[in-house]
């Protein structure tokens, strides 16, 4: 326990707040950290502020106050440095439709700074994420969402960054694909990655997360470790927190 606490967090949100131009307070003083070898899941309904959080980590948005740090680097201060340490997978992976899977992967992996991979490295990883060999040389425009998601995670794996951000990665995947995806995430965690995932899939979150946070209307209303969740009914907790918050508002 002692040694665990001493490892520095890779992902860190410190009193993160975001108010949009229209006055919408999308994030309200959110703090958490994710260490190497941990999966942190943000649970929350639509509009809870999950994507906003991830966008701040990627410097696609600036926080109104507080800061997001990757590997100790404040993202809105040195975004280029910070982003060297993170791989990202969006809810709906969009790649170049006129490029093949391998061409897309080659481009994005090189863009991520990894220049020395060979084609067979790419193919190995594509096999690992479960994209059938026939699809490797096919143009992306015919790909299903699941296939695109597989390309996306392959890119994230190949970037080999210490942190991985995933924005609702399993939404829209069929159960089998979802299961395989979660297994893959567990492997990556075991390789020492710090993983921050937003989701509204309570069961998968409980299955693999080391920490689960519940977000509601921009606030992190609950944070529990795997041990703390042992024996708890997460679904019930989720509904309670949502309702409780609603009650205090009303």
């Amino acid at each position, binding site marked *: 326990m002692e040694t665990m606490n001493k490892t520095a967090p890779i992902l860190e949100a410190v009193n993160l707040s975001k108010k949009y131009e229209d006055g919408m307070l999308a994030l309200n003083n959110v703090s958490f950290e994710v260490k190497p070898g941990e999966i942190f899941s943000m649970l929350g309904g639509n509009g809870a502020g999950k994507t906003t959080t991830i966008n701040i980590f990627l410097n696609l948005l600036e926080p109104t106050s507080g800061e997001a740090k990757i590997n100790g680097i404040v993202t809105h201060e040195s975004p280029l440095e910070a982003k060297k340490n993170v791989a*990202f997978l*969006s809810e709906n992976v*969009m790649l170049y439709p006129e490029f093949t899977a391998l061409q897309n992967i080659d481009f994005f992996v090189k863009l991520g700074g990894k220049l020395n991979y060979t084609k067979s490295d790419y193919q190995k990883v594509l096999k690992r994420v479960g994209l059938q060999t026939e699809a490797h040389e096919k143009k992306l425009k015919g790909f299903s969402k699941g296939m695109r998601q597989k390309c996306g995670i392959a890119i994230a794996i190949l970037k080999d960054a210490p942190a991985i951000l995933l924005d609702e990665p399993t939404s829209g995947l069929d159960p089998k694909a979802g299961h395989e995806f979660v297994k893959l995430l567990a492997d990556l965690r075991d390789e020492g990655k710090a993983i921050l995932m937003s989701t509204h899939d309570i069961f998968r979150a409980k299955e693999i997360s080391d920490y689960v946070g519940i977000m509601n209307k921009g606030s992190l209303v609950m944070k529990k470790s795997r041990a703390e969740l042992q024996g708890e009914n997460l679904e019930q907790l989720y509904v309670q927190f949502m309702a409780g918050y609603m009650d205090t508002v009303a």
Partner: protein
Amino acid sequence: MLKLLIEKELKEIIGSPKFIMMFAISSILILLTFYVGGINYKKNIAQHEAAKLENLRSMEGIKDWRLIEHNIYLPPSILASLVNGISNDIGRNVDMYGRGEIRPHGSVYNENPVYAAFRFLDLTFLFQIVLSLFSILFTYNAVNGEKESGTLRLVFSNSIPRGKYILGKILGSYAALSIPLIIPFLLGCLVLSVLGIQLKGSEWFRLALIINAGILFMGVFITLSVFISSVSRRSANSFLLLLVIWIFVILVIPRAAVLISGRFIDVPPIDELNNKKNAYNRELAETVLNKLKTFKADGNEDLFAQFEKYMEEVNDDKDEKMNSFGSKLDEERKNRQNVQSDLSLTLARISPAAQFSLASSIIAGTSLTLSQEFLSQAKNYQNVFKTFQQEKSGGSSGGGMKMIMVNEGDEPPDIDPTELPEFVYKEANLDSIIVASLGDFGLLIIYTFIFFAGAYMAFRRFDLR
């Protein structure tokens, strides 16, 4: 990193189905232009040679060079066949006499009005319309399209400076869109040699300059499109906006420039000038009449001689006044005309399309100055011809007259038409062409940089989510 971004853009454009269409269309049009230009050139050369022969033949059997009036012609040039400029609108034929005003006539469009109705397909027209449209078609959504399709977020989840990304976009598009320009252009040069048309070294060089001007012009539209696509959030909007700009740049500004300068700078019509001259002439005639009335004889001398001398002075005075009045009017009109055309060129140069077409016509030797250049070389030739006539007929016209009278009984020999000094039209040299086109090249480059800077600034503030 920049190389990667450029390569990706290049591959993406080249790999898209619309690129194949663009390549096909631009190849067909460019090759057609070279083919039609080449065929026209050959036809013009044949006509030119025939006209020169006919010119010589018409002198056969004539016994005195002073009786010769012949024609000189502006020779065809291959560059003019490819970049028409004003070469089809101006008179290419001058009736040559030893004295008097000369006036070029017989323009291509005059002789064949049907050509005027459709104009020829030339490189300037082609580049202006087609290249600019293609540039827009391929880059109107360069930035906002990637946002719409969702790839922008993934790109910028990496450690990519925004400036590099925009530079990569522009350079990649530049490289990709140059291909369907340069390859058909090179094939077009091949078409010329297949047609048996040989270009001089300097003509090759000028052709290369013309394609360079075309690429620069295309670059203006590429940077403009990337700029607009990073200003507007939706690609549909940027497409519409670019179409409007396109219409202004290609169609409205150059025409408006001519109309506006015509409104602001009055050039008096020739008739008005002649009326003024006539009025002044009448006025002068009246003073002559008055002077006639006030003539007072000095009793001592021959009255008739005195009157003649007096009237000669009066008339000389009148002629001098009339001449200076007339040439002042002519001069004024010419100056105003120059001011007007300078103004319209300056205004037109707001449009990169005008910059490009002016640059390419200057390089091809078919710019507005072609008619003045031809006229002035024809005038120089007139002097040469006049001197030649005088030499051949033994000095002044009066002396010639006497000689004929002395040799009355002999049959004088026919003249030898081949002795006639040849009119050779000298094209401007390469240096002066380059200097003259430098301004327009500069403007094209400046526009490119302005739009690039605009794209860079707009993209710094672009919402990448």
